[in-house]
């Protein structure tokens, strides 16, 4: 089939021709900017001056020697884990509740999705207002309940700022996890669940020994996708705290943005971006592996 017969193209050759436009578009909008960014990381390119020179690995040396970069990596890990695990667990819980199919569950499912539709920056400002130390609604409620005497600047303290951003991210992403996990739950065989109940398993035992193993692949995929999404996330840490106070909410995405667009240092920003891309690639590889396993 692969050989040329009577001047006609083989199936493989036709296949290559068919993917050619897609490949060209990929090269233009993904490959070129990526290669350009990697190359830029070896230069001292600035946003202000058009001229630049090659500096080899100088940017990488500077970044890895910077003690504040280690802190940025730690903050990124904390944010990614917190902003994935918390909404994941709550989303799973809510999905299990909605999966009971009680009256009004479809309405509740629709209402839950509203959070996900609201733009990230709007959510950021909404939660900044909630957590504001001077006029925030959280302080007012806690003072009214007698829990606090004076207002706490939740976003102005290093020990609470990141937690506030994680809470806001949880509120934003809970519907996303709920929707996908609900899909996974609905794929689990009802007969198996009923059989487990007949055999005397309680709800928790049924969930952990029958339902969860039944949707293991899907659950893992959603978790890894959540990790990747949070690793790329920018809106909430920026709108709520701009990376502060004292770098408490500076994640890799914030670091790249401020280095490029506040400090005008495109070369260094591209360096951090490349390191960031390598970390993302690891998670993407896990995702692809899981995806292949599920399809196998």
């Amino acid at each position: 089939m692969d050989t040329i017969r009577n001047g006609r193209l083989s199936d493989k050759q036709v296949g290559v021709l068919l993917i050619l436009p897609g490949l060209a578009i990929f090269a233009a909008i993904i490959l070129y900017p990526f290669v350009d960014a990697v190359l830029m990381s070896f230069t001292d390119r600035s946003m202000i001056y058009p001229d630049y020179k090659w500096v080899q690995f100088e940017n990488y040396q500077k970044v890895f020697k910077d003690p504040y970069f280690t802190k940025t990596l730690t903050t990124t890990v904390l944010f990614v884990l917190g902003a994935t695990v918390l909404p994941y667990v709550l989303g799973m819980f809510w999905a299990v509740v909605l999966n009971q199919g009680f009256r009004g569950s479809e309405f509740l499912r629709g209402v839950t999705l509203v959070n996900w539709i609201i733009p990230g920056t709007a959510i950021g400002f909404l939660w900044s207002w909630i957590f504001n130390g001077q006029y925030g609604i959280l302080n007012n409620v806690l003072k009214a309940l007698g829990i606090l005497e004076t207002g706490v600047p939740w976003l102005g303290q290093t020990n609470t700022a990141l937690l506030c951003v994680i809470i806001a991210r949880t509120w934003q992403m809970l519907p996303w996890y709920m929707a996908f996990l609900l899909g996974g739950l609905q794929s689990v065989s009802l007969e198996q669940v009923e059989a487990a109940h007949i055999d005397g398993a309680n709800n928790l035992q049924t969930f952990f020994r029958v339902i969860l193993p039944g949707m293991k692949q899907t659950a893992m995929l959603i978790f890894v996708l959540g990790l990747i999404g949070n690793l790329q996330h920018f809106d909430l840490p920026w709108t709520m705290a701009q990376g502060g106070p004292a770098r408490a909410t500076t994640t890799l995405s914030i670091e790249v943005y401020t280095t490029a667009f506040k400090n005008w240092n495109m070369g260094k920003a591209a360096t951090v971006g490349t390191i960031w891309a390598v970390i993302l690639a690891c998670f993407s590889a896990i995702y692809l592996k899981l995806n292949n396993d599920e399809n196998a």
Partner: protein
Amino acid sequence: MKLKKALGIVLALAMVLTLAACGAAPAQETQAPETAAPAANAETTAAAAEPVNIVWAGWSGEEEASKDIFGRMMDTYREQTGNDVTWVGWTWADTAQQLLIRTQGGEQLDIAQVDIGIFNTVAAAGVLADWNEVVGADYMSQAFEQSALDVGNIDGQQLGMPWSMASITMVYNPEILAAAGWDKVPVTIEEFEACMADIKSYNPEIVPYAVSTKDATCAGDFMPWLWTFGGAIFNDDGSVAINSENAVKCVQWYQGLMEKGYIAMDTGRGEARQLFAQGKVAFYDDAVVAKGQAVNNGVAPEDVVKVCSAMERPVLKEGDAPQSTMWGHMLVCFKDSEYKEQAAELAKVLVSNEVALDYFTNNGMPPVTKEAAALEEVTSDAYLSGFMDSTATARLEETARMTNANEVKTVITEELQYALLGQKTAEQAVADMAARLEAL
């Protein structure tokens, strides 16, 4: 096999062409203005009679306090010239970045409002036109004082047209001070602390001093206090000077204010203005535009001094010079603009007496032309006189002429925050500021 090879070549060519197309575009755009400049000028001259639409960029037109005034400015331009003007705006903090991106992207940009803090960065990008060439050196020297022109002059080129010049100093609410038993403003730091203690006793819900402790304004507020304590960020030769005893004393003083509850974390200029307008802040640092916030909140322009007055920054000991930073807005015209002539017309409208007085009356922006600054309404204004007293000793921010000003300010802000949150001693924070600045 031949067909496969041919297919391979086609594929490779397609990839190369695509990449080349992507890569070549910006270079062409960058070169085009220089080579096409005479042609563009010729077109402009030919089309001078035709109404054109120019693009004006900045941030004040986005702010509630000045949005209406900017609308009136543009209406005046339209009426007087028959041309149209489109406003493109961002937040103050994003303006430098957006101007650079827009100029590099080749988008239309004819005139912009820039703060003196970002002026040097935009000028360094080599995108600004010389006003002396656009409107003529005679117009500039006749309209403005030399001292104002100097701020916008870089290496002999008049890249900025003065639009408003004053200082960022401290503003206070006379009603809160009076209620706390203070009929006059504190002059020394000792008095200032005593005043804040009285305000705290009078009403614990009031933040005595909303000094900025976050974002781009934090380092800007810190600088004049550092000078007050006799410190500096840089020496005259550009070397780092911040690791000094005086800087440590200044940071320790900040820490003391935080411990006593006189200042608060998570406070930027936006929060300070909002809380001040609500009567929940006694002192904060701001420019003359503070008036706009009060007017926007329903205070009559003539009554603003009753709730928002400028004062000189308290000093270590009586007789010291009060510190404040120069503040101002300039108008810049872009080298690649096809409508420099029309942009110049807009600039002239903006600094005209009628428009400048409207801006001054409703927003507090002091006019900067010789003629408008001498008007009775301006010279007799009680609100402005407070700012002008501080302007007499005002200095440019130490980072004002640096292209990496934001990077320097970020280092100062972050280390100050570490100290205020008790994660570093004042000595350690100052030493780390110095080490990080030296590494830039």
